[in-house]
């Protein structure tokens, strides 16, 4: 063993992961052995049997075979290799990767990594961008690492490669790895599908909400305003009817967050929430609370949430921005408006909001996330019963027994657990009194939680009223009109450029022997669009999300070792798709902008009439 080499690797690994691999050397069950061709293999004693990680005849040939299996990947593919061993296969794999390819190597046995560190200089790999060597078998820690690399743009572009017999030797953890990868896949897939599904709805909502966004408050006005105030997040699970009446005792000693579905239940019990949270962009968000849609409780919502919910609502609104509308929000309001990690349910969002407001502890009720007594929701929230075709997943219940959930609720549950791991400095209480176990929460009854944490009057209502008054924005309709007109003009330019770009790219589809000159010509259209992107942050928002969508589509991502001809073809196809999408979107958004201009002109006329009348 070369001591300095070993030390160098150990230090670099510690820098990257904070883990000291040296500590595992002493009790390691891994032994280095020379191979017949004078390299090394490693033998481990696992559960009383001795097994080799690498061939003891030719580990190099084995590594070459490992990469032979590679196919259908591109420069953005996320590689997850299960098993580091002594790393011959990793060195071989690296030869085939682009610098953009993320690489996660999972080595369940720290002792094996220690051996790898003793025979080769791994510091270049450890310093490689987008690379992580995970060691051990802690599924929660792995979840966090995977979260660093897997996102909505690459979730359909993952490659899990088990090396050698790792999947057999460490089969239990391998199952966990598969489960975690699948979880991320479904989490982001839902998110991606939601975005695609609601794309037009988002735009329509945003522009219909624009007048309200312009004049109402930002979520930033509430940031850390309720430090260490208990938060109660009310969800519509079947257990809600058991204990909802206890909430009456919270009064102003804790903040009550209600979703739309639970609002009628609370009002029937004469309980007034401090905030109503509504996230859904679809009309379903309105249907669940339509009998009391004209309530006056402050609404916390996003800029793209359902426009009917917002237009019917009679109270004040606190808006959360959206990552794809950040520029548009900034362009129109010129105020700070944060983006929160909102998850996929109102309860997920309420949790993130409560933490953002500074609340602690966070107490859940009605958060069954399971078919308690065979029901979807509490009877008071229009509960339906379990149907035969519901997809059932068995999870741990709060009492340790198994309960049934479905894939959607499971996604909500996973999101909460991940959020709790990422925000460890809070206390989380599950006071649902039933349903699935939310790891990271303490379990108690709602009565116990209120008795334990609601100890003093926090004057929450007064605080909210003060914030609302302080953040009032005066009449500025002409300013809004100017901004709308300016956006309209720029979108007309975008439409013209992309119409021409589409036409030319489309013509090239039928041309034989296309070359780089053709591509350079097409690039001119994107250059013109980029100039507009730089000039107008609202245009940037609209165009960049289309460009991002196109550039994360596997069809348009550069393939490894593609020929010049393949590259030209790919780029032409990309331009056709890009300009078509931009042309259509610019046209559609301009219609929305025009309708806001028309509405606003009406309002201005009425306003001016009323002034002259006075």
């Amino acid at each position, binding site marked *: 063993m070369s001591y300095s080499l070993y030390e160098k690797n150990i230090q670099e690994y510690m820098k990257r992961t904070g883990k000291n691999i040296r500590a595992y050397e002493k009790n390691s069950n891994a032994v280095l052995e020379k191979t017949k061709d004078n390299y090394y293999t490693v033998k481990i004693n696992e559960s009383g*049997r001795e097994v080799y990680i690498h061939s003891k005849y030719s580990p190099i040939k084995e590594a070459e*075979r490992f990469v032979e299996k590679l196919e259908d990947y591109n420069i953005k593919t996320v590689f997850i290799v299960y098993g580091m061993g002594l790393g011959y296969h990793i060195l071989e794999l690296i030869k085939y990767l682009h610098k953009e390819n993320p690489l996660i190597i999972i080595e369940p046995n720290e002792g094996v990594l220690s051996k790898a560190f003793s025979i080769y200089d791994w510091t270049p790999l450890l310093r490689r961008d987008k690379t992580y060597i995970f060691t051990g078998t802690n599924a929660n820690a792995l979840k966090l690492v995977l979260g660093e690399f897997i996102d909505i743009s690459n979730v359909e572009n993952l490659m899990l490669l088990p090396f050698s017999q790792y999947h057999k030797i460490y089969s239990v953890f391998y199952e966990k790895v598969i489960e975690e990868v699948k979880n991320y896949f479904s989490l982001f897939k839902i998110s991606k599908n939601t975005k695609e599904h609601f794309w037009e709805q988002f735009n329509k909502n945003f522009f219909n909400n624009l007048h309200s966004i312009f004049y109402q408050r930002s979520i930033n006005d509430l940031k850390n305003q309720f430090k260490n105030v208990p938060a109660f997040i009310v969800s519509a699970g079947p257990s809600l009817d058991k204990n909802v009446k206890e909430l009456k005792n919270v009064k102003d000693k804790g903040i009550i967050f209600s979703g739309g579905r639970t609002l009628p239940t609370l009002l029937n019990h004469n309980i007034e929430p401090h905030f109503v949270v509504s996230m859904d962009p679809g009309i379903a968000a309105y249907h669940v609370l339509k009998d009391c849609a004209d309530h006056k409780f402050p609404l916390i919502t996003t800029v793209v949430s359902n426009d009917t919910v917002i237009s019917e609502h009679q109270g004040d609104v606190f808006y959360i921005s959206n990552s794809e509308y950040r520029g548009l929000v900034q362009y129109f309001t010129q105020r700070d408006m944060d983006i929160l990690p909102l998850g996929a349910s109102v309860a997920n969002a309420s949790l993130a909001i409560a933490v953002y407001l500074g609340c602690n502890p966070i107490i859940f009720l009605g958060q069954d996330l399971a078919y308690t007594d065979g029901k979807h929701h509490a009877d008071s929230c229009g509960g339906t019963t379990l149907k035969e075709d519901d997809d059932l997943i068995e999870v741990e219940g709060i009492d340790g027994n198994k309960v049934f959930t479905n894939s959607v609720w499971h996604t909500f549950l996973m999101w909460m657990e991940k959020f709790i791991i990422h925000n460890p400095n809070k206390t989380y209480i599950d006071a649902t009194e039933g349903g699935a176990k939310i790891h990271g929460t303490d379990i108690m009854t709602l009565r116990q939680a209120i008795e334990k944490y609601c100890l003093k009057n926090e004057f929450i209502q007064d605080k909210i009223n003060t914030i609302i008054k302080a953040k009032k924005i005066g009449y500025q309709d002409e300013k809004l009109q100017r901004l709308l007109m300016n956006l309209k003009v720029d979108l007309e330019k975008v439409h013209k450029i992309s119409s021409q770009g589409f036409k030319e790219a489309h013509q090239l589809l039928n041309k034989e022997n296309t070359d780089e000159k053709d591509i350079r010509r097409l690039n001119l259209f994107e250059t013109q669009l980029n100039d507009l992107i730089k000039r107008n942050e609202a245009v940037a928002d609209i165009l960049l999300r289309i460009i991002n969508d196109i550039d994360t589509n596997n069809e348009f991502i550069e393939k490894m070792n593609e020929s010049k001809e393949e590259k030209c073809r790919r780029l032409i196809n990309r331009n056709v798709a890009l300009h078509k999408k931009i042309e259509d979107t610019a046209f559609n958004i301009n219609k929305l902008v025009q309708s806001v201009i028309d509405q606003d002109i009406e309002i201005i006329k009425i306003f001016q009439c009323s002034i002259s009348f006075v």
Partner: protein
Amino acid sequence: MNQRAEKMEVIQTLVEYTGRLINGINEAVDSFHEGMEGKGMDLVVQIIDGLKWTMEAITLTLDAQVEPVDVSEIIEPLNAMIEALENIDYVLIGDVLEYEILPKVEEWNQKLNLTIGE
């Protein structure tokens, strides 16, 4: 048919059989490398049965072989195989098949071919 002719017929069968055995070993090696351990293990059982018959047939026809095959050469690889099977070490099972047993069976096939090509 005299005894020699019978032995030549057995050797002819042995040549064909060891050819099939070589294919079977290669298929088993590929199975282990591709993570199809179940298929690989099914093939290993058949390969060991096949080797047993091959060794018996080689021993019975020794005096008819131009270049006699020494079946004892396979004992050591088979012991390594037993150890690998006991440990359920798929890497070693694949290794022993590829680097120990396969070269021996190929060598036997060539030697036996010499006899029938006489």
